[in-house]
């Protein structure tokens, strides 16, 4: 496993430099928890023992489904989830994307490795045995779990 790579541009989050640490508290969240349901579930719906049903339709290709930046318990957390399926993609491509979603979380500027379960929920390297429907909840849970510790420097990631 490798750390989730940084996304090249295309997000609506302002550059870190424009954000005064500690000076903002409002979360910027576009979309809803319900909008984060996985493309994969559509693929599996027929054969799979179903996970609880989606509450909202899957977001369209190219859209940012979730975006936030806030101070939480003294830590700066930022995240973005983008659906990067090109218009007209075949179903098979959509499965690929669902498996490697454009999701990124940073805590105090350092990347948190985020993964996804088959029901579309997220989990992280820090809290690895419990998952959450939104990136924001995943980030807050990771801060809770970290306590006083920081994330490892990206270069320290082994896999």
């Amino acid at each position, binding site marked *: 496993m490798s750390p989730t790579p940084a996304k090249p541009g295309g997000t609506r989050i302002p550059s870190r430099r424009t954000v005064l640490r500690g000076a903002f508290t409002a979360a910027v969240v576009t979309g809803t928890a319900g909008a984060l349901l996985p493309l994969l579930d559509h693929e599996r719906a027929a054969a799979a023992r179903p996970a*609880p049903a989606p509450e909202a339709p899957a977001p369209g290709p190219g859209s940012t489904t979730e975006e936030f930046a806030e101070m939480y318990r003294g830590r700066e957390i930022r995240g973005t989830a983008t659906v990067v399926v090109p218009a007209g993609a075949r179903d098979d491509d959509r499965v690929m994307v669902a*498996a490697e979603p454009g999701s990124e979380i940073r805590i105090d500027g350092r990347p948190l490795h985020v993964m996804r379960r088959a029901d579309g929920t997220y989990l992280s390297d820090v809290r690895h045995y419990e998952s959450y429907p939104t990136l924001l909840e995943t980030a807050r849970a990771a801060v809770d779990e970290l*306590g006083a510790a920081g994330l490892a420097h990206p270069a320290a990631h082994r896999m």
Partner: protein
Amino acid sequence: MYTRKNQRDLTRTEKRRLVDAILKLKRSGRYDDFVVMHREYYVMDTERRPRPAHMTSSFFPWHRQYLLEFEKALQRVDAGVSVPYWDWTQDDRPTSSLWAEDFLGGNGRQGDRRVTTGAFAYEAGNWSVGRGVTDEHYLTRNFGRPGRDPVSLPTKNDVARALKDPVYDTEPWNSVCTEGFRNRIEGWGIRGVRTVGLHNRVHQWVGGPMAGAASPEDPVFWLHHSYIDLLWDRWRKAHPKSAYLPGRKPASPGPDRDYVFGLDDAMPPWSVTPRKLLDHGKTYRYA
């Protein structure tokens, strides 16, 4: 043939020998290889590649072999040790002898959650963590995760309920199976069905590395999984006619079948099949 005991029944000498063997393995670098291995094979059920360890049918046999390998490594250091089990339905208090100074040390302290007692306290000079998750090198614990979202240890009733399920595992053989012994024990939370349980919940309760991607960094990992392994035995005994699933490939061609390990599929990195691991009676027994 050797015996895996309940950790509460270990003598003072048995505890010391086990701790010493673990510390020697750590010093040699072998211990950290096990940490890395667990991380490597913890594959998500959204990934399009084989997942032998978690979110999968072979959760039990993969960890059985993983523990056997760890135990073999320990026994090369001291032939007289084995991996005891922690029955967390019984020893569910932070004051359990498991967490005493002479064994695994206790809960993390207030503030930085650092473990300050026992042989695995950073200050003792023999134990450091930090395989790429956090930037600290001292072992931390946070029993029960007090605060916003606390967790309790699973109970005897929780275990009994899981053991009652007569089916080993069900399609799609992943983390969202609502039925089947395997995922009931592995314990993935499923929205609208059940919250995080059993195996996963114990990882959460301990906190620190145990809650994260480098969970074997806390030696309690092995005692926890020894008990999980024992529960597989109990389930097999309770349901002698129930088979490991999935069985032969053509019988169950679900969408996830290519990435999970059926009875006769060799699991990496050891190329051992679940079938070979069903019965361990010639190697070890539980007391």
